């Protein structure tokens, strides 16, 4: 998951636990400087990079940032906009002006109803956490088929791997289209066998993504993949 986990340092901290002296160090995310000491504010693994100490949280809510590619579901429909569930504390707003279709006022329901799934991008997040989404952009669309899975957002990097290597490998093994949203939702589409295997791999990320044995377990799963067995 992080450099801290793969390297020599593997230290789990709980909120309030002292990580080290704050002199000469910069305070990163998940930490706080208190009385010349850096303390952890979250349950997670300590990461130290370029004199910045941070804590990679084990669990975390998704906080949208502008530019994020996410898999969202429609939660509410109004005459001229959709409220989208972005898997975070706040709903996102998709105005009809940012939808990929030409929508007449009052016709929003004809394009998307409650429960529909879309691939969208976060256009804007203001300081009050109002989230505006857009579907104008290459590849952004309604997802009409496939299945949706959830993983902890702290394990997204684990699923993607270095330079997207892991996710690319998974795509090749199961011969499925896989999109990993920044909000922890994963869209998988392909034949039934491939999707079933992809589901196992995603479940593995969910249950073992934080462990050092993850790579080995994933390799074992790959050896049992249906496509590998046929070859």
């Amino acid at each position: 998951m992080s450099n801290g986990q793969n390297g020599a340092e593997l230290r789990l901290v709980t909120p309030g636990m002292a990580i080290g002296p704050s002199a000469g160090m910069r305070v990163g995310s998940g930490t706080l400087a208190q009385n010349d000491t850096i303390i952890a504010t979250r349950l997670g693994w300590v990461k130290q990079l370029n004199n910045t100490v941070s804590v990679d949280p084990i669990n975390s809510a998704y906080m949208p940032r502008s530019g994020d590619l996410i898999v969202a579901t429609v939660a509410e429909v109004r005459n001229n906009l959709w409220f989208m569930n972005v898997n975070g504390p706040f709903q996102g707003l998709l105005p009809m002006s940012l939808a990929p279709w030409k929508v007449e006022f009052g016709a929003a329901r004809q394009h998307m109803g409650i429960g529909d799934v879309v691939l969208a991008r976060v256009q804007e997040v203001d300081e009050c956490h109002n989230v505006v989404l857009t579907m104008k952009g290459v590849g952004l669309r309604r997802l009409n088929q496939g299945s949706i899975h959830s993983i902890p957002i702290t394990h997204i990097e684990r699923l993607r791997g270095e330079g997207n290597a892991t996710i690319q490998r998974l795509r090749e093994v199961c011969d499925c289209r896989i999109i990993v949203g920044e909000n922890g939702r994963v869209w998988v589409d392909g034949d039934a066998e491939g999707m079933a295997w992809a589901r196992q791999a995603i479940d593995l990320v969910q249950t073992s993504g934080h462990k050092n044995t993850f790579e080995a377990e994933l390799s074992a799963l790959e050896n049992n993949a249906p496509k590998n067995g046929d070859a």
Partner: protein
Amino acid sequence: MAGYGDVKLLRDDGLRLDGRKLDEMRPVTIEAGILPAADGSAMVTQGLNVAVAAVYGPMEAHPRKIQRQDRAVIDVRYNMAPFSTSDRIRPGFNRRSREISKVTAEALESVVLVERYPRSKIRVEIEILAAEAGTRCAGLTAAAVALADAGIPMRDLLVGVASGKVEDIVVLDLDKAEDNYGQADLPVGILPNTGEVAFLQMDGDLSPDEFNLAMEYNFKAAAEIHVIMVDALKRRYEGGEK
């Protein structure tokens, strides 16, 4: 306050009725992540007390009038199960559970970094499955572990402990008889790393010296419980065990 006079709560050998020393707490066990549907959860057993806490959120605060533009609100619901005591408790809110929910929420608000999640709500559900005095403290401890398990940023792990007075002697962690027939009860929420007090209630009377001794006992117990809390969280994620 003289208590109930003829109820004997200390043995002739100086120990308490259940054989504990004056500054000895009941055995405590903590398990984190017991509820798969919750974002974070924990179970605390302290003597015969069993407290389960579940944390959901942060989520959008509804109704909108409870939203705060600069911070999250913590919505605590403390409830004792009808079967938690020998006399059946009428289900639903009562004066006591409302009070405990309120003071617990205020204690947690002082440790959770609520300013990180403006306009949102963090829901904490505390359910007491079995009660034997000191349930608000066990509930507070369970809520703190559940919040940490949910990944909510906090300044410290809040620990709930209580001391009291029986037969004019200060004792740590009152059991049911001591709570019912004792002279005083002092439940406290302690931040073990900084030594701050986030929550304090007192029932009965304590002299300044007795109060200081009771607080000394509480701090000592908080340090012990904190070790168990950290261990529970580490056990859940460290190594191959989940």
